[in-house]
């Protein structure tokens, strides 16, 4: 086996820079992409950047704890992927599309949609069979005549 001497600080910084770059590229993908699956993949990319940092510090300090933490990161990534995929599948069943902007409106169908000139507008297909809870619109209290309480 070749002599693997202790890691120099320059090598550690190179690894930290690669990790930071991967993390930032993941942030960009998370913010800009509109595909739900690509958003999840960008989150995984951020986890990759963190894992590089952890293994680099593990080698720098010469103990296995960074790698143990990377194993935990891997576990959480697997949990996140499973839960996220099932959520994406159930969201896809509702709208038949993976566009995240279709889920930008959480209000009721008769309320106005928030539009911004810089954002692309989407037409949300209305599911006629869906049953959503309908809340009474908020506002000032309507004036009512004082009435006697009705007997039930």
């Amino acid at each position, binding site marked *: 086996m070749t002599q693997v001497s202790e890691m120099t600080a320059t090598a550690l910084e190179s690894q930290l820079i690669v990790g930071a770059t991967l993390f930032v590229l993941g942030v960009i993908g998370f913010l800009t992409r*509109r595909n739900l699956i690509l958003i999840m993949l960008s989150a995984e990319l951020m986890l990759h950047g963190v894992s590089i940092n952890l293994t680099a510090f593990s080698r720098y300090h010469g103990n296995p704890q960074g790698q143990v933490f990377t194993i935990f990161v891997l576990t959480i990534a697997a949990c996140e992927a499973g839960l996220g995929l099932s959520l994406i599948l159930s969201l896809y*069943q509702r709208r038949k599309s993976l566009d995240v902007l279709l889920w930008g409106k959480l209000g009721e169908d008769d309320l106005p949609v928030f539009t911004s000139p810089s954002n692309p507008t989407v037409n949300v297909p209305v599911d006629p069979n869906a049953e959503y809870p309908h809340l009474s619109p908020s506002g000032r209290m309507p004036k009512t005549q004082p009435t006697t309480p009705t007997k039930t």
Partner: protein
Amino acid sequence: MEWTEENGLLLIPLGLGWLAVWLLMPSERKRPRILGGLAGLAAILIMQMMLLPPAGDFVRNGLFFLFAAGSVISAALMITDRNPVYSALWFALVTLSVCGLFLLNSAPFLAAATIIVYAGAIIVTFLFVIMLAQQSGTIGNYDQQPLQPAMASLGAFILLGALLFTLQEWGHIGRPDASQHAMPGQFITVPAELQPNPLSQPPADNPHEIGSLRVLGRSLFGDYLFAVELAGTVLLIATIGAIAIAPRRSQGTL
């Protein structure tokens, strides 16, 4: 002025990187994507020149730059590709490059585990879902219209600049007098009175063996036994939750 002379060199690759990501983003209008690719390559080359160690193992540095450049380029192409299937394939390439970096960091077990988990399970599942999503026709071309690409990448590159400036302040990136060894207090050092578990330390005959199954297993099931049990519980709960959330097949096709 002194500060700009010392740290201003980092602004060039950051600006070039921002330009590259913005130009490579899919958009309605025609953008010069080749120009974006050239800007990204220039940013990576400048960054590599600033990182170049004065001396060292040639093979090791070459492998490091190969894997680092591969992971960064694949990640940039993954977040800018128009086709989500290609994005997933670029993500597989990112995973392979990151596993190469793990190997360089003497973590062979971790590299194998990451390849098995990501490339084996997640990528296949994601390709499955992407193909399901595209077979019934999509509403609108949402993959060609990213959300606020210029502002999002500008903010993210400001974050990267902050990280790099912090590293430069504490380390010596791009300094000509970059010494080979860490200065005391450069990074957080372990307190002397904190005695590690002797079972989870690397063996005495090979003190650099930190990624082998023996050392990792002793550390996992010795120092971190409670955390391992918690991780198992989290996996179980995530499995139950995924089964509960996933839509039933009896309602029709996915």
